[in-house]
């Protein structure tokens, strides 16, 4: 679906990309990994026709970017790294404009805008001006703008960088659903995020592709195929030593040597979800009993 063949790009004397070749199969989600300045954004911008490679060829759904750039743009939904949109338009107006630009008839554009605002969780902010959206809300709006018109290819440049933990979870749930029917290519610095949602990866370092392919195959090739077990439970700290001895003995009994046991205190993530879940439970109880109360108030208590 996406194919880069020996792409090279120079910015002045700086060689940003050197013989970059990779392929993202149809209806899969591939992660694009690399350090800052490795060339991820350069390639994503090339894929939507914002930059022209000095050498090589890019094909999206069989269309060459060199000769059929406008057709390719119609096939791709793109979320820039720092999405910025018309601040004087409302979220709904902006999405209507996005919809009409990708060929949604004007009559259906409003419904399409409402549908995608709902998908990204911005239903309550349809009439708010984009200039008053937070960074996370702009990122959600950017995703809605990329999705509108139902393009078969999604190119997402760090799509969760401005989102809160809950927003990231929602985004990944959405991407897992979308990859059944779309080709998704997303860049991120966060390996855990990529592992959660992607079928494959492309790893770029200093403008050169270091690895690409399905995640399972790559890990298998590198000998990372054995499974590590992570068991999570809560235990009083004074029982730790006894539990470790019992656990090691039990594992040895079934012939599995224990290489390492790590004790981890419950961190911020656990605490955050605990508080948020408590807040939501309290809110739902309040709404049943007709009492008021804000999320902030509950968190403070």
């Amino acid at each position: 679906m996406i194919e880069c063949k020996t792409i090279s790009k120079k910015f002045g004397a700086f060689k940003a990309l050197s013989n970059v070749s990779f392929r993202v199969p149809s209806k899969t989600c591939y992660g694009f990994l690399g350090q800052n300045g490795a060339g991820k954004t350069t390639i994503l911008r090339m894929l939507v026709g914002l930059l022209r490679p000095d050498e090589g060829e890019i094909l999206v759904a069989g269309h060459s970017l060199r000769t059929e750039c406008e057709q390719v743009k119609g096939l791709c939904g793109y979320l820039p790294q720092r999405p910025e949109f018309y601040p004087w338009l409302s979220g709904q107006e902006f999405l209507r404009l996005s919809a009409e630009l990708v060929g949604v008839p004007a009559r259906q554009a409003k419904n399409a805008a409402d549908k995608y605002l709902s998908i990204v969780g911005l239903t309550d902010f349809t009439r708010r001006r984009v200039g008053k959206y937070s960074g996370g809300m702009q990122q959600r709006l950017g995703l809605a703008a990329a999705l509108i018109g139902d393009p078969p290819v999604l190119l997402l440049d760090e799509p969760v960088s401005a989102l809160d933990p809950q927003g990231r979870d929602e985004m990944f749930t959405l991407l897992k659903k979308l990859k059944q029917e779309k080709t998704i290519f997303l860049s991120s610095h966060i390996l855990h995020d990529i592992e959660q949602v992607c079928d494959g990866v492309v790893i770029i370092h200093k403008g050169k592709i270091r690895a690409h392919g399905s995640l399972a195959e790559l890990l298998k090739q590198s000998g990372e195929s054995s499974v590590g077990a992570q068991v999570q439970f809560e235990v009083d700290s004074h029982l730790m030593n006894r539990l470790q001895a019992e656990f090691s003995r039990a594992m040895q009994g079934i012939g599995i040597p224990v290489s390492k046991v790590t004790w981890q205190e419950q961190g911020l993530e656990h605490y955050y979800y605990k508080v948020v879940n408590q807040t939501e439970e309290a809110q739902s109880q309040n709404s049943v009993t007709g009492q008021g109360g804000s999320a902030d108030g509950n968190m403070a208590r």
Partner: protein
Amino acid sequence: MATWLAKEAKEMVRLRRWVPLVAVYLFLGMLQPITMKLMPVILDSASNLPKGTVIHIPTPAVDQVLYGIIGQYNQLGILALILVGMGMIAGERKLVGEWLWSKPVNVSHYVLAKYSVFLLVAGSSSLIGLGLGAYYTAQLIGPVNWTVLWQGALLYVLYQAFLISVILLASALVTSPSLAGGVALIIILLVNVLLPMVWQGHFVAGLLELIQTTFSQTGWSGYMAVWEPIVTTLMGTALLIGLQIPLLAWRRMSH
């Protein structure tokens, strides 16, 4: 095209871009006959002349007052046009270029929508301003031939059409709105000051002469046909608009 027209109209209203245009053109239109009528009083009260000095300024002719409005439009009016138009493309590319050019945008619709909305607001403002100016001229100085006034006013709108094409081209040429304003100002100064010296009676210089001739009802004294400045200005305008389309199509790739 309708999508872009609606977007441009919203932008014009919500960013209040129409305000300086309407304010400047209406103000200049009204002010010119009033100041010309009251000039002796103004000079008398403002200057420090000895007692008993008599200032005798003949009441200006109607056509002088009307062309005086055009003269004002050619100074403050042009500055207002540049102020409003310099960021229309340059500012937009800076702000939303990454999103905008990743979409299959029809560049000619994009340019024409910007041009049409800008010309509609600027043209209406100058027409209303000239109408008000003519009304005050009729009240304070003498009868106005309204047919002649609207002929001259429409010729001025054609001149504005040319100015707007210069400003939008400058805005498409560079990415900084202030630099675009500077480039537009330099081009307009060259066209307004240098062109009449070397090519009198032709193109936009001829058009301004034609407006003056229309107001004075003296008949076109140029050696070329009346339509020559009109046609060449129209052609120049079309050329400048046309240049923006390949320029933006090329620049979006290297954005």
